[in-house]
C-alpha cells in the first residue's frame, strides 16, 4: 500500500515538475513560434501554428547587422566575467579561509547593493560615463557589468570555497606541500568546478543584462540586448521581427546553457569527507 502511494507521489511530482518547466519555457517557445510567423499572423492573436516563414530572420539580418552586436555581447560577457573572477577569487578566498569577525557583514553589504533599484543611480552613472568618455565603449560597459555582477560572483565563490574542508588543506601541509604546491595541486583542482559554474552563470547574467547595456550604448559597443530593443521603438512594433531578433539573441546562451547544465548544477564535494 505504502509503495503504491509513493509511486503515485512520484508520478504527480514528475508531472508537476514538467508542468512548471513548461510554464517557464513557454515564453521562449512562443517567441520562437512567433518569429516564424508573418507580421499579420503575429498580431492576429494567439496561435501555436506559424506559417513557417524564415523571412523575418532575413529582414532582421539585412536591416540590422547581427554579427556586430553578437561580437559585442561576447566581448562584454566574457570580458566582464574574467575581470570579475580576477577580483572575486582572491576576495572570496580570503573570506573563506581566513575569515574575520566582519566577514559576514562585508558579504551582506556587498549583496545589499544588489537590492537597490538600478534606476536610482541611473543619472549619476550616466553623467559619469559621459564625463569620462565611457558612453558606448567596450571598456566602460565591461567595467559596469563587472561591478553589477561582482557581489553575486563573490558570494558564489565564497560558498563554494567554504565547502572545501580545511582538513584536506592541512593534510597537504602535513604531506609536505608548500603554499604554492598546496594551491596548485590541491586547492585549485578542488575549486575548479565551483569556479567553472560561477563563470558560466556570470556569462549568462552578463549576456542577458539589459538595463545598463541599452542605456549606456548606441552602436559601437551595443550588444544583442540593444539589438533586440532596436526593433521595438521608432518605426512601431513588429512582433515577428522582434521575435526573430530575440531568438537570435538568446540562441547562443541557450546552447551554452544546454551544454554546460551538468557543470552548472555540479557540486563541489566528491566524497573525500564523510
Amino acid at each position: 500500500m505504502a509503495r503504491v502511494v509513493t509511486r503515485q507521489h512520484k508520478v504527480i511530482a514528475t508531472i508537476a515538475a514538467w508542468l512548471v518547466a513548461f510554464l517557464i519555457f513557454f515564453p521562449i517557445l512562443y517567441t520562437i513560434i512567433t518569429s516564424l510567423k508573418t507580421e499579420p499572423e503575429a498580431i492576429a492573436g494567439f496561435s501555436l501554428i506559424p506559417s513557417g516563414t524564415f523571412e523575418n530572420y532575413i529582414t532582421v539580418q539585412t536591416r540590422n547587422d547581427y554579427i556586430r552586436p553578437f561580437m559585442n555581447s561576447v566581448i562584454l560577457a566574457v570580458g566582464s566575467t574574467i575581470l570579475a573572477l580576477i577580483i572575486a577569487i582572491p576576495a572570496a578566498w580570503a573570506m573563506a579561509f581566513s575569515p574575520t569577525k566582519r566577514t559576514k557583514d562585508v558579504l551582506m553589504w556587498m549583496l545589499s547593493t544588489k537590492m537597490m533599484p538600478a534606476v536610482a543611480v541611473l543619472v549619476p552613472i550616466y553623467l559619469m560615463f559621459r564625463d569620462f568618455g565611457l558612453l558606448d565603449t567596450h571598456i566602460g560597459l565591461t567595467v559596469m557589468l563587472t561591478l553589477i555582477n561582482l557581489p553575486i560572483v563573490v558570494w558564489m565563490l565564497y560558498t563554494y570555497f567554504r565547502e572545501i574542508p580545511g582538513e584536506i588543506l592541512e593534510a597537504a601541509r602535513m604531506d609536505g606541500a608548500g603554499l604554492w604546491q598546496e594551491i596548485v595541486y590541491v586547492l585549485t583542482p578542488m575549486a575548479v568546478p565551483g569556479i567553472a559554474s560561477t563563470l558560466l552563470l556570470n556569462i549568462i547574467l552578463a549576456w542577458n543584462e539589459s538595463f545598463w547595456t541599452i542605456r549606456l550604448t548606441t552602436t559601437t559597443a551595443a550588444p544583442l540586448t540593444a539589438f533586440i530593443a532596436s526593433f521595438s521603438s521608432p518605426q512601431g512594433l513588429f512582433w515577428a521581427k522582434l521575435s526573430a531578433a530575440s531568438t537570435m539573441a538568446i540562441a547562443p546562451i541557450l546552447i551554452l546553457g544546454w551544454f554546460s547544465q551538468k557543470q552548472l548544477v555540479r557540486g563541489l564535494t566528491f566524497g573525500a569527507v564523510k
Partner: protein
Amino acid sequence: MGSITLNKVSKSFGEAKVIPSIDLEIVDGEFVVFVGPSGCGKSTLLRLIAGLEDVSGGKIMIDGKDVTDNAPAQRGLAMVFQSYALYPHMSVRNNIAFPLKMAKVDKAAIDQKVTDAARVLNLTDYLERRPSQLSGGQRQRVAIGRAIVREPSAFLFDEPLSNLDAALRGTMRLEITQLHHQLKTTMVYVTHDQVEAMTMADKIVVLNRGNIEQVGSPLDLYSRPRNIFVAGFIGSPKMNLIEDDYARSKGAKTVGIRPEHFTLSRDSGLWSGTVKVAEHLGSDTFLHLDVDGIGHINARCDGEFGARHGDRIFLTPNETKLHRFNEQGLAI
C-alpha cells in the same frame, strides 16, 4: 627515531586558554593515547605537535631537536584525520603517492612504495579508484597508506575510527595495532573510545581542561587512578563513587568501587538493593541497582546472572579493591 618532548607547552585561542601548560615525554616507538572528555584539548595538543597550530608558549622537541618554529612538513610526522581528508580529485594511487611526490622521490621508487603500502593495507584492487568510490574503512586505510609511505618518525591519529561502525572499528583497531608492531614507529592517538584506549596504548595520557590528570599504562590507570577524575573516566561501565557514611567508615571523603568488584548474591550480603535495569550480554551481566541507603550502583558479573527488573538482590563490595579519595579528590 621518534621521541617527542613537550616542554611547558601552552595554547590560547584569543582569550581562551585551552592548554595552560603541559610537560610530556613520548618515548621512541611508544603507542601513546590521549583521552579525555570532549573539548578538553586533545585535538589541539595533537595539532600543536603536528605544527598545524602555533604554540602560545613552551617548546616542542622531536628527537631532541627543537621544532617549535618548524612548519608541519619539516617535522617528519604524518597525520591521519578523523574525516580522512583524502584528496577527492586524485585516485587512491595518487593520494598515497602525494607525500612522496612532494618529497621529490623518483618515479620508480614511488611506484614501489605505493605498491607495497597497498599490499599491506589490502588496497591493491582499488588503486585506480577515487576516494568517493570507497567505503569508510577503505578510505581510512588510504589515509593510513598515505601516512606510512613517507616513513615518518611518528604517526598522529585524531579519532581515526570514530566515523566507522562498531564492527569495522574493531577490525581497524587490530590493524593499526598490528601496524604498530610491524613498524615499531611512535604513534600518538586521540580517542574517546575506552576500548581503543585500553587495548591499543602502551601509555595513556588522561587530559582534562587542557591539563594532564595522569599518565601511565592502561592497567596502571585502571588499578591505581591518581584522582577521582581519572577513576571516573577510565573504565566502562564507570566506577561507582560513594560518599557519606560508608566513605567515612573507610576514612575517606569518597570511596570508589569498580562495577566488577562486588559479590552478588540472592540470599545475603552487606547491602541490599532493587534491580532497576538488567543488561544481559551473555558473557557478562550489567546491573543497575538502587541500593538501600547508598543510591545508584552499577554492578557487573561474569556470565549470566538471572536477575530481572524489580528483583531484590544482595551485594558485598570487595574491600581489598576499594579506591579511597580525600577532600581534594586525590587518591589516598
